[in-house]
């Protein structure tokens, strides 16, 4: 009898050890020299509640209970859209993260999540950080997936030509853009592309060998307008159970571009080019290539994408040369 009790104890202990953390406590730090706003304590409490609910919902394999959660409508919508696509939990029982203070909001960038796909592999990996924004009262105003550490660092500190606040805004929208593909948020993508947006996609074609042409591979470019692109995207969303899009830097320090993943137009300073490497993995398809986005940011208006180009990373067994990757200079603004 005693032996059975001991065995049962160890079995239960082992089982408990495997479970994700239940309650999550949150501590937000601020840099020396910055006055710590009173709302940070509220932000800590609110994020703790949300992460604890996330962990409980993941453990119980149910929908999130968003009733009463200290979040704005937009944040609730962001989070539930992600949850509808994939479940996850917070990897730490205690989250300690730096809180960045902006004029009208606060932000934490490295909430550690573990994605737990149901029955299928999910994209590039199981670890994913989240970015959480808070309003001035500490209420959660947005919840989105973060870009990887290196790309985030590069875009954040890319001091070449873009002022800090605009860099943070660009980073915010690139993250939202990426999250929209992962959550199949067609409404966001419809809004973010301008009505006259140009979408250019490169395809690798193999040419036939004849007397004049030794053969090989080359990239052929096709154009779509916004309507065509969105229609194709809807079809892709419908036929793929999950989509995992990842953005990263192009090469070491962005190759010749240095950390200038973001460049600003000289002729129209409201326009910015963002160059990224994109990995697309979905239930039925995967590819890797270079993405160029031409953004327009105007004060008081939501930013829009005027141009989206995609080029394959590999052509004929070789990486696409940096000089052939689309950049701001390729477009007449």
């Amino acid at each position, binding site marked *: 009898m005693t032996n059975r009790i001991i065995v049962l104890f*160890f079995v239960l202990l082992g089982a408990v050890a495997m479970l994700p953390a239940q309650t999550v406590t949150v501590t937000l730090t601020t840099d020396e020299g910055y006055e710590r706003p009173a709302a940070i304590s509220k932000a800590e409490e609110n994020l703790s509640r949300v992460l604890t609910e996330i962990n409980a919902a993941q453990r119980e394999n149910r929908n999130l209970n968003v009733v009463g959660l200290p979040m704005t409508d937009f944040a609730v919508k962001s989070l539930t859209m992600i949850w509808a696509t994939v479940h996850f939990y917070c990897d730490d029982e*205690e989250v*300690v993260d730096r809180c960045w203070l902006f004029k009208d909001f606060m932000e934490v960038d490295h909430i550690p999540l573990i994605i737990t796909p149901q029955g299928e592999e999910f994209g590039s990996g199981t670890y994913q950080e989240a970015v959480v924004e808070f309003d001035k009262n500490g209420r959660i105003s947005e919840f989105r997936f973060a870009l990887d550490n*290196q790309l985030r660092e590069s875009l954040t*500190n890319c*001091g070449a030509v873009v002022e800090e606040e605009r860099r943070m805004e660009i980073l915010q929208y690139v993250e939202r853009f990426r999250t929209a593909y992962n959550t199949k948020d067609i409404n966001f993508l419809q809004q973010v592309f301008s009505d006259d947006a140009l979408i250019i996609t490169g395809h690798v074609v193999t040419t036939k060998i004849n007397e004049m042409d030794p053969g090989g591979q080359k990239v052929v470019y096709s154009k779509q307008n916004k309507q065509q692109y969105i229609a194709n995207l809807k079809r892709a969303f419908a036929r793929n159970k999950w989509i995992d899009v990842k953005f990263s830097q192009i090469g070491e320090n962005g190759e010749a571009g*240095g*950390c200038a993943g973001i460049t600003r137009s000289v002729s129209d300073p409201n326009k910015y080019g963002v160059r990224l490497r994109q990995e697309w993995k979905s239930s039925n398809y995967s590819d890797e290539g270079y993405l160029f986005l031409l953004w327009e940011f105007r004060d008081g208006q939501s930013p829009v994408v005027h141009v989206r180009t995609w080029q394959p990373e590999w052509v004929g067994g070789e990486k696409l040369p940096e000089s052939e990757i689309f950049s701001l200079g390729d477009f007449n603004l």
Partner: protein
Amino acid sequence: MIRKLLLTVFLALSVSGLSAQQTAEEQKKEINRIKKSSLYLYGEATMPTEQEAKDLAEELLYADINEWVAGQKKMSNAPKVVVNNTKQLWGGVSLPRGNMFRAFFYVKKSDILPVENTQEIVPVPAASDDEAELLSSSSVPAVSPVVAEVAALKEFSALQGCLNRLKQEGKIKDYNKYAALQDADRYYLIIYNREGRIEAVLTPGAGRRNVATGRPDAIANYAGRGAIGFLLAE
């Protein structure tokens, strides 16, 4: 007999799994203790490979150190700072982060020390033919004595004291981090690296020049560096 063996194996795995988790949890607690403490500076990164995580975490720590040093008045007159006891606390497998690696570097602020009376011997590279021609032709444009004084500084730690004094003397109107500049084109830029060495001073304008060489230069040539801008008094 087989049932006993299977049970023993299961119990052993449960306990060892629990032990491994305890080690990971202890390391997480230690990391959190350091992050919450105002006594430390740190850099943290989670990346697909160990080396990438370590490289990025180290870069972030150096950036943090430079920023902190710039804000410390007692460091401002020291010709050099030294960072002692840089430690590494990471777990690889023992600090799981899904399918990635977490690296965490930290240093105690009290281990960052101003160093007096040091002399560093820096080998001067032989001038290339182009540089030799440039120097001999004296084509480097003359700069104001204020700009020359700033351009003569080698260490970031000496910057704040110098810029403060120049501002008090009315020789410069303003100085700030590049990210905080309202109209960066109007400012001279001091470029420094993460080791705290000043690499270049660039003239203002859309087409900048390197003050030391007189040649065209640009911020884009200094990936991964920081910059301080200063504005001459008219």
